[in-house]
């Protein structure tokens, strides 16, 4: 189908974009970033926004900036910008491995990191990365900027803490220690589909024991999140297949999985445990 009519705004600066949002908030004004989620929903007429505020030509919206402590990901950083590692450490490698699971090559040429976060699909890989690594998100409105922790950004499936007149300006991902290990695993029925469940695991090993474990699960509950029950199993113990299975089982028990046409809650919960086990094994490679 064809999208319904709308007014197309092409602001040149962040200030202009924010004033346009303020002027049209309440009239179903939307940011148009990569368009890889919004345009399909408009083609189905599930969305009929009256105003599209197209940020693709905003000159002061950045892409990727590698800082000392964090990687700043501006609203115009596209998925494809992560195909090659954006930094030499483990975070660059993690992002370039995870990005290959997002849709398809042409989707990744257009879709943006911040757009994925704002869209907040429960099975978005970037949302899982942001939640697991405790990204700091900067929202911008005509009134100014505010920072939102990833842990309180995702409120429900497709619902975020962004107000109607706010745009997501930037996401900051803390860089990982040089000896951090990471692993990712997801299960989707067909290549390029949204996954039924996915897991990201990050930890370090000190004197043979796991320290600072992070275990995040996506596609299973309404929002991706860290699972403390899984992390607690790992902390202070020696990495190995039996421990990874135990952590996976703890996650399967802890999650409140959703049920839909693709998978029952029981299946998804168990799949989450298996994804965690495999992500941990991947991290130990």
């Amino acid at each position, binding site marked *: *189908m*064809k999208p319904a*009519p709308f*007014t197309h705004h092409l602001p040149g600066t962040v200030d202009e974009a924010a004033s346009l949002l303020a002027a049209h908030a309440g009239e179903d004004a939307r940011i148009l970033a990569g*368009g*890889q989620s919004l345009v399909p929903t408009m*083609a189905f007429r599930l969305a009929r926004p009256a105003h599209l505020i197209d940020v693709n030509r905003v000159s002061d919206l950045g892409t990727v900036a590698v800082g000392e402590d964090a990687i700043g990901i501006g609203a115009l950083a596209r998925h494809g910008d992560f195909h090659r590692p954006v930094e030499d450490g483990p975070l660059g490698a993690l992002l370039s491995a995870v990005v290959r699971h997002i849709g398809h090559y*042409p989707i990744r040429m*257009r879709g943006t990191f911040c757009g994925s976060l704002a869209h907040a699909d429960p099975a978005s890989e970037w949302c899982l990365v942001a939640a697991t690594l405790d990204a700091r998100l900067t929202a911008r409105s005509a009134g100014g900027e505010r920072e939102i922790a990833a842990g309180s950004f995702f409120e429900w499936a497709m619902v975020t803490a962004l107000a109607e007149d706010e745009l997501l300006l930037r996401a900051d991902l803390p860089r990982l220690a040089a000896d951090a290990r990471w692993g990712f695993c997801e299960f989707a029925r067909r290549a390029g589909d949204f996954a039924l469940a996915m897991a990201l695991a990050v930890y370090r090993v000190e004197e043979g024991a796991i320290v600072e474990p992070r275990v995040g699960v996506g596609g299973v509950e309404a929002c991706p999140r860290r699972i403390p029950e899984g992390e607690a199993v790992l902390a202070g113990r020696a990495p190995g297949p039996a421990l990874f299975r135990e952590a996976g089982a703890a996650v399967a028990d802890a999650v409140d999985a959703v049920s839909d046409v693709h998978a029952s809650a029981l299946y998804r919960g168990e799949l989450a445990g298996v994804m965690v086990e495999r992500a941990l094994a991947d991290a130990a490679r």
Partner: protein
Amino acid sequence: MTAPRDVSFTVNGEARSVRVEPRKTLADAIREDCGLTGTHLGCEHGVCGACTILLDGAPVRSCLMFAAQAEGAELRTVEGLADGETLHPLQQAFIDCHALQCGFCTPGFLMLAAGVLEREPDIDEEGLREALASNLCRCTGYLNILDAVKAAAAAMKAGPG
């Protein structure tokens, strides 16, 4: 404005100016306003890849962009692949490897492969398989498409002649 607006870009090196409603997709503008019907439309929501074109060198789904977003862009479509009567190595390889049957998906696969090979000439087989999984083909079973793209990649590296 929901009113039509003038947009200028180049398609296959030729300057074009079209007057389009904001809601008109780039795919529809290429087909209807530029008369270049080699770009096909299957799903119109980003899943099939039939509408793949090159936007400033990157393969993109032209059904997921609005024409009004292409101001100043360099677009390439399947009509621009051949050099006069000489087929592009990808087109020749698709014929040689029997990589098409009905041909509906072919323009999308050609532009996808052209974009990927130009950006990543050293892409390995796994990378190619992953990239080619972007588009759908109901006929070939994909393996002949993979063979064709591998053959074309070798030919493109060897250079013309």
